[in-house]
């Protein structure tokens, strides 16, 4: 029952008639109260500014709202609710950004928006926000603002190369975050036309917003672009969407992420080839994940993001529901009917060989499971051969094995890690099987010393398997895991094992040869926590990415972790 106190600030604006694509208004809403507050918020937009049919996107926090007006708007205004009816929880000092995007303004001149906010059930406060709609040719004007490469490799620390063109006789400033880069040396303005500005002053890899502010005739507008500085190996960037729960590859040019935030859980498209990584993009339309599936494992299966069963990490959330989201159709389908397997959590799933597989986990009564089921259509499930032992928190991945002699490729499922119960004893073995058939235990060889089946780092407390295409067109199977290092703390680091190819994995009793060796790589992501991992791969023209996320029940971080080669 704390006092509410929101500070509302117009952070940037650029609204121009006939330029919907670049017209945007950004408003920062900050909680200045001593503690967290819950506030209901409404946005009132004058119909003279944008009518209800032409509001393209209202982005509040990580979510882009479907702009559906609510009732009780004053005459001449359209009213939108921001957040839930019960209100939005603002943590102490938290800022939530409200973006109005793709604005199709109707008339030139100043327009006053209103933000109504306050405690639910009480009289709301009103804050006016005045923006100015510029005419098509009015100054100030940003003709262009671009980065030569929106993704920059940190190695050698090359400059970020920016170019812009603005209206003449304007005062131009360039910022990275809130640091002013230009003008410098007492100059009044940066150039209004710049073809090759080079910023070398960044210090660490990350996602950098560059903002160009242009002032003329007493009016200031701004535009922001994002440049990602990444290095070979492990990277981590903040993401607006929330804490990643799943990163999925569609096998082509797209990644999809399931993120949890104060809004709940939703699916967002990711674009590793773009500087922003898509982290500034809006969520998939109607991509809100059913609440019970917020931390469920997901697989990209036959064109859809399929969420299966209970939580990956929370041994209090059990389910046997199946929900599928089609990014093209932009709709969900509940596939839970006739699911034969019991409600569970800590299970592993994968999409491979034309089937969707679910294996193991823990049921609500605490029993660790060993059953395996698969489906071809997402609705009808068939039981397969059980896992070699009851396990949970394990990793399951499909990867074909090539026989160098015959050139034949054989589909196989791979199984690694896992525990005998939540937080229990880790398994160290890797197993493989023809899909749906009996599992065979693999063995690791490190150098010439047989260390089977333990690769030598201890017990994996979280593991993920991922496949990548190598330059020669072959497939590599990667094992990414967190290990308990001796008696060190569990969160001491994340390591990856990179195999030279599944075909070279040796089975029990095989002769040892050099091609069976595994390359061991230490992660630079020392903050990764030892829990369930998920991994996905993405190959761009320039880089190969492996995304790996620690999925935590209550320590979720709003960052994306990825490996670049």
């Amino acid at each position: 029952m704390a006092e509410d106190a929101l500070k509302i600030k117009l952070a940037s604006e650029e609204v121009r008639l006939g330029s919907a694509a670049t017209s945007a208004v950004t408003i920062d809403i900050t909680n200045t109260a001593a503690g967290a507050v819950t506030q209901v918020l409404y946005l009132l937009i004058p119909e003279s500014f944008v009518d209800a049919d032409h509001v393209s996107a209202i982005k509040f926090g990580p979510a882009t709202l479907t702009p559906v007006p609510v009732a009780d708007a004053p005459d001449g205004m359209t009213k939108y609710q921001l957040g839930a009816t019960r209100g939005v929880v603002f943590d102490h000092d938290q800022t939530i950004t409200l973006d109005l995007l793709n604005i199709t303004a109707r008339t030139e001149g100043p327009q006053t928006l209103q933000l109504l906010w306050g405690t639910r059930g009480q009289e709301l406060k009103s804050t006016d926000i005045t923006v100015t709609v510029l005419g098509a040719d009015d100054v100030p004007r940003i003709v262009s603002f671009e980065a030569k490469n929106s993704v920059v490799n940190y190695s050698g620390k090359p400059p970020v190369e920016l170019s812009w063109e603005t209206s003449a006789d304007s005062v131009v400033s360039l910022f990275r975050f809130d640091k002013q880069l230009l003008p410098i040396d007492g100059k009044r303005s940066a150039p209004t036309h710049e073809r090759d500005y080079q910023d070398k002053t960044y210090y660490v890899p990350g996602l950098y917003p560059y903002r160009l502010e242009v002032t003329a005739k007493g009016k200031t507008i701004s535009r922001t672009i994002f440049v990602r500085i990444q290095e070979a190996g492990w990277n981590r960037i903040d993401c607006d969407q929330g804490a990643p729960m799943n990163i999925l590859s569609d096998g082509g040019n797209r990644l999809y992420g399931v993120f949890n935030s104060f809004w709940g859980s939703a699916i967002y498209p990711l674009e590793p080839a773009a500087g922003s990584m898509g982290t500034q993009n809006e969520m998939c339309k109607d991509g809100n994940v059913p609440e019970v599936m917020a931390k469920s494992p997901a697989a990209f299966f036959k064109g859809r993001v399929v969420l299966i069963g209970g939580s990956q990490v929370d041994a209090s959330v059990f389910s046997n529901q199946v929900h599928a989201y089609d990014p093209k159709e932009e709709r969900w389908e509940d596939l839970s009917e006739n699911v034969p397997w019991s409600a569970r959590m800590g299970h592993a799933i994968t999409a491979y060989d034309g089937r969707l597989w679910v294996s193991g986990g823990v049921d609500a009564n605490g029993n660790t499971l060993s059953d395996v089921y698969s489906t071809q259509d997402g609705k009808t499930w068939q039981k397969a051969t059980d896992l070699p032992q009851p396990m949970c928190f394990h990793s399951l991945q499909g990867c074909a094995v090539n026989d160098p002699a015959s050139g034949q490729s054989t589909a196989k499922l791979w199984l690694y890690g896992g525990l005998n119960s939540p937080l229990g004893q880790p398994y160290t073995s890797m197993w493989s099987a023809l899909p749906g058939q009996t599992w065979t235990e693999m063995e690791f060889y490190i150098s010439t010393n047989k260390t089977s089946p333990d690769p030598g780092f201890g017990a994996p407390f979280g593991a993920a398997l991922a496949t990548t295409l190598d330059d020669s067109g072959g497939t590599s199977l990667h094992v990414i895991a967190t290990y308990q290092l001796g008696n060190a703390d569990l969160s001491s680091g994340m390591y990856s094992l990179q195999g030279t190819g599944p075909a070279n994995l040796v089975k029990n009793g095989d002769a040892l040869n050099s091609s069976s060796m595994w390359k061991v790589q230490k992660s630079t992501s020392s903050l990764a926590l030892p829990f369930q991992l998920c991994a996905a791969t993405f190959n761009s023209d320039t880089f190969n990415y492996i995304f790996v996320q620690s999925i935590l029940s209550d320590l979720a971080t709003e960052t994306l972790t990825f490996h670049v080669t």
Partner: protein
Amino acid sequence: MTFQPETFSMPSFLRFLCLCLGLIMALVSAPVAIAGTVATAVIPVAVTGQGAPFTIKQDTSMGVEISFDMSAVPPGVRLTSAVLRLVPTSAGQGAQFVRIFKKGETGTSIGGLNVPVTPTPTESTGDGLLNVLADRPASLDLVLTTDSVRSERSYFSYADSSSTNRPRLIVTWADNSPKMTRVGTQLRYRGSPDDATPWAYNAPEGAVLSVLFPSGGAQANILTGPAFVGDLVVFIAKGSDGPKLYGMRPSGSVAWTYPSDGTALDDITWKYLRLDDQGRLMAFANTGSVTVFSGFGPRGPATAVTKSVPEMNVSKRPVISAGGLVVFRKNQSSDAEPGNYIYALTPFPNLTTLWRSPANVGKSTAPVLSPRLGQQLVYVMGEDQSAGLSIFDNTTGVQPVPIGFPAGSDLDKFNSFHPPLALVADPTADTPKDWVYLSGFAPGNGTLDGFTDLDKPGSPGRWNAAQTGEVSRCMSPPPADGAEPVVYCVQAQQFRAYSYQSGKMICASDDAAGPVSATSNLVADGNGNLVFWQEDAGPSGVLRGFSPTCEAVFMAPLDGLPAKNDGIEVLELRAGPDGAVYAYSGSEVFALRVTQGAAAPTELTANTQYAVQGDMTLASLTAPADGAVALHAEGVLALGDLTVPAGAAVVCSGRKGLSLGANFSLEVGATLACGLNTTTAKPAP
């Protein structure tokens, strides 16, 4: 008297015969049924470690054994959930996953506890415990183990000084009991609320007052207010033969006293009676004990069990949840003895402390239970501005939101508060929620505000605006099916009805009703009429009646009820099962009966009380076969050729006589209970 196979006739010479017939008991289910879930909790009777904190760790071959006495869960109910709740003693090095096994069956676990690193109370998952309890074992013996590495954790046991920390098994069951029940000639709402009766008063026009006990000018000390067991009014009084539990018929005769063997109850500070949903009568005594009377028959209770409850020192009447949990506020009896805490006891037969409020709630109102069956909450309003509203989960004692006054209300400007009024906003919703009405008052001033979602973080929903003016304790009668509840209060010298969701005033009494005040709680009849005592009107106070549309329907001067200066701050009116309203003082138990005009009824409607201040002579009427009828006359009651068909139930009394016509008939399957009224009439002033 000769019984025929289908009917019998009463010859005329049997006129003025006193009848006390309970010929055939007809158990009639109620017209309305609302499903819900009842929750209760029991704490273990034995745990490895004998009450000291116990440790669960990997490689403990035998695990931790924990046992529960399941006799507190009533037989015959369909259990819907069962969870084990443990509280870690401290933060751990790591989280822990605990498996629950039935003792002797360690192959398959029947539940899991996902205990975080923090010392957070944790409840088990899975349906295994429920399945094991399906056979309704007398006791439940469990074994707790873990495979979690690096996570040796210690948990509080049943002897911990903080009762909230004690492990417990929380069990729920489906309650499909009807909203209203008829047993013989008695009508009661589920839960036997004190302030509402299903009986509809026919054409209310006045009221009469009589003394139920003691009779004939005898002297007695009334030690507890009345409760209602079956068709009897039950209380503890001390006469010349010591304290006894009395069971009295509404007509004024003593059905039984307990003990009946010439001995007496212990001469201790008996305070309050409450009937639980299992038909047990709990007597709370401020000498640290609760006596439970059960097995009521024609000669009174078959058993009386006294349990020591050292914390029992109360000045507000405890409440009993549908699951049998007893909630009360302990008085601060001395500086050395802690008080002003809210306590909950496990159900009978254990009656051990289930939880205690973590903080002193100060001087406060009596606890009020959420009417929601699915989630039982306890609401307590601080009376001295030191606390505000406290909300507790009934099974755990957890406070879902901090104590305090809802932000923006004027409640913190007052020193006196009524107990919260809670009602279910939409009982048919998937997740019904409470509306809670909080009122603070001072002479000539007051505020009343309605809130919902008070038990959830964030800002609650609330009325559009608070209603101001000195306010009585409000009430909301059980609404008819499909109808919205209405909140009735006496406020700003008017009788008023408020919309339960918006607080908008629906109606108010007019000037003709004069200044209205309430010196008692408000009691509703089956038609939604409200009656209450107004002490400052008439020569010695009046019983007032208002219709649901705020029209004054009667104002009956009565003489003899205790005044405020008798030590009773506000007169407690309790609706009895026979349609009368009961009150008590330190020396008398009173019966108030709402009467109609002199005209006798020309037809009889189910579940309706017909009472007159003079004689009542019925024509050849037929009692409704689908309900009960109550007939009372302060003069002679002439039933005439009344026909009581199968399925009908008639209760009747006449103070000066009772007669039957020659063609009076009582069919097999009907119920009739009639007698002379021997209570001591109090003449109107």
